[in-house]
């Protein structure tokens, strides 16, 4: 009896040894935690005829145990997190029997819980427990069986630790691979971006790269150009485009990275309709210049920190490149415009008299300084076919191109009418009608012109709303104003004829014709230069030549306004010899 029992025990322990040997070989080669856990539970429960078993793995971050495997009528489920009535480092023993330690048994199974916790530990780490309940016939495990499970637990713990390390390393490797892949994309795209000048192409490339790396289906790039309202530059998968108000509201939302909140989805329906989950602000030199919106990942994984990093890196790169192309385009456009302006300037210069024709008994100086490349001031000194010279000065409302076009128009009318044998008054009436018919209602021309009958020293003039030229008689301390004539040009068609007025000029008299750029300039306190200062300036240099008088006026005006002329400036200075 004793012998046979001995034999049975021997063969049983031999069998258990073989199991341990085979299992350990299997486990050492395995890098699969699931397989190891399944094996551990299956073998121990199967061999011991235990109907209730579980594997609890310790999660240090949570200070709790995760029910990783459970078999039998359990009150817990796989994946549950539970705490045990003792601390993870309280017992170093290989086997913990709560009943023996007089601690409450954790509730794991329906009915009475009376089992053993086998410590799954390596030499340095506690990994968790293998839990085995009582045998099917309510019997407890004997010492030999406990020893067997202990051995298996020790081997399994080593294998679990190995496989966990292995999967950790694999995860690290994968993260590294992803990072390298993202960097490759950043590198490729930065090369691409620098080779294109098309902002749409950059935005499109940005879109594809983002969709691929973030695994999202919905995307938009909202871009602010020149402080206008933000515009959608690129998008994917949207059910509709956001309205102007939505675009502004969306643009204002994120400071950096924003998870869109329910109330924000409610106030901006576009975000809701398109499942936009994340808004990211992209900045250029500290200013928010673009906002990217994306939906959640299509595979329902959460967007990670590294996803956001990638989005921001690539986004900033794209925004910088887009901005660069816009600036480049503006620069090219500006240069082109500059060239055209120079051409226009040269054309306009050709419309002014190149050299002032000599006029008997008169000495004349004239000058035009446009505030921009081209301007709306006009002056002319030209002989009419009857041998008497015409002196004209005009100012078109406004500045720049529009004014210059009208000025050119006036110049050509004047030159066309010059050989026509009609009076100054009739010519003025015709010019007025043409201007009135051909120009927008907000464009006018102030106009002064005169014919000088040099044999009689008689000046016949018409002033159509222009700043009255100043006539300073030889020896006089006051200036006469040549202000007779009629209506400013272009306001209405000619009904009453323009009035001609004759003045006789005498030696030493000075006549100064000017545009409002001369008198309507301001000093730093906003004080106007004005007609009085102009008269004083002329008086102060009245004995000088017309050129010197003109230069002095320009000097004074420049000094007064601190070289900030805001309007075109034209002067004709005539002295009777």
């Amino acid at each position, binding site marked *: 009896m004793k012998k046979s029992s001995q034999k049975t025990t021997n063969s049983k322990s031999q069998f258990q040894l073989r199991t341990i040997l085979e299992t350990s070989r299997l486990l050492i080669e395995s890098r699969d935690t699931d397989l190891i856990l399944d094996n551990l539970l299956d073998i121990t429960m199967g061999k011991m005829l235990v109907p209730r078993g579980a594997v609890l793995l310790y999660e240090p971050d949570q200070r709790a145990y995760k029910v990783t495997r459970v078999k039998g009528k359990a009150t817990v489920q796989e994946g549950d997190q539970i705490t045990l009535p003792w601390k993870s480092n309280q017992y170093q023993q290989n086997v913990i029997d709560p009943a023996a330690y007089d601690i409450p048994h954790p509730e794991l199974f329906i009915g009475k819980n009376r089992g053993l916790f086998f410590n799954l530990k390596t030499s340095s780490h506690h990994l968790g427990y293998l839990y085995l309940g009582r045998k099917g016939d309510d019997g407890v495990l004997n010492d030999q069986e406990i020893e067997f499970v202990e051995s298996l637990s020790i081997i399994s713990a080593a294998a679990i630790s190995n496989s966990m390390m292995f999967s950790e390393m694999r995860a690290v490797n*994968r993260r590294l*691979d*992803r990072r390298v*892949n993202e960097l*490759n*994309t950043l590198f*490729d*795209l930065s090369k*691409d971006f620098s*080779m294109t000048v098309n902002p749409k192409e950059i935005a*499109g*490339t940005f*879109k*594809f*790269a*983002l*969709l*691929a*790396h973030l*695994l*999202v*289906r919905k995307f938009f790039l909202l871009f602010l150009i020149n402080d206008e309202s933000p515009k959608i530059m690129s998008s*994917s*998968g949207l059910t509709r485009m956001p309205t102007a108000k939505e675009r502004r509201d969306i643009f204002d939302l994120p400071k950096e990275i924003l998870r869109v909140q329910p109330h924000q989805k409610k106030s901006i329906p576009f975000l809701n309709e398109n499942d936009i989950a994340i808004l990211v602000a992209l900045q250029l030199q500290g200013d928010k210049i673009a906002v990217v919106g994306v939906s959640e*990942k*299509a*595979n329902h*994984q959460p967007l990670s920190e590294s996803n956001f990093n990638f989005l921001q890196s690539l986004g900033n790169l794209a925004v910088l490149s887009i901005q660069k192309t816009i600036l480049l385009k503006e620069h090219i456009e500006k240069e082109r415009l500059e060239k055209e302006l120079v051409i226009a300037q040269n054309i306009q210069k050709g419309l002014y008299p190149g050299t002032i024709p000599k006029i008997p008994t008169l000495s004349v100086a004239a000058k035009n300084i446009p505030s921009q490349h081209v301007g709306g001031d006009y002056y002319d000194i030209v002989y009419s076919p009857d041998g008497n010279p015409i002196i004209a000065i005009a100012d078109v409302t406004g500045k720049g191109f529009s004014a210059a076009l009208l000025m050119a128009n006036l110049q050509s009318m004047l030159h066309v009418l010059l050989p026509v044998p009609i009076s100054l008054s009739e010519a003025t009436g015709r010019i007025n009608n043409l201007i009135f018919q051909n120009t927008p209602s907000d464009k006018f021309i102030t106009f002064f012109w005169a014919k000088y009958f040099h044999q009689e020293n008689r000046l016949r003039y018409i002033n159509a709303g222009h700043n009255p030229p100043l006539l300073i008689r030889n020896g006089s301390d006051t200036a006469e104003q040549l202000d007779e004539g009629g209506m400013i040009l272009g306001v209405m068609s000619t009904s009453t004829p323009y009035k001609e007025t004759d003045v006789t000029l005498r030696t030493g008299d000075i006549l100064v014709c000017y545009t409002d750029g001369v008198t309507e300039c301001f000093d730093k306190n906003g004080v106007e230069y004005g007609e009085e200062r102009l008269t004083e300036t002329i008086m102060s240099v009245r004995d000088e030549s017309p050129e010197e008088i003109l230069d002095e006026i320009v000097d004074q005006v420049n000094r007064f306004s601190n070289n900030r002329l805001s309007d075109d400036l034209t002067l004709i200075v005539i002295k009777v010899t």
Partner: protein
Amino acid sequence: MTKTIQIEHQENRDVDILRIGGELNIHSAYILEQSILNLMEKGRYKYVVNFENIEKLASAGLGMFMARIEEIREANGDIKFSNLSKKVYHVFDLLDFPTLYDIFDEEEEAVSAFR
């Protein structure tokens, strides 16, 4: 800029097989997208993209598939991939594409998966 992609198109009943070769990058992706858009316009939404002859794959080039997949699936279609080399699969895997798309070893398997 390199746009060196070759696309060979073959219809197999309701499935369109696109055998692509050369380089799939951000630029050639537009060309492939255009091929797919042309088919979508004809009301054809079932695609097998065979990567056998792809020598180089930039991950940004795969963004195009994300841009169109929703529309295609809503029309009861799909994009399935086949014949990915180890290198190509690695890129797919890093981007988690296998969680969203069916990938097959052989073109015929992908085609029959539509039936």
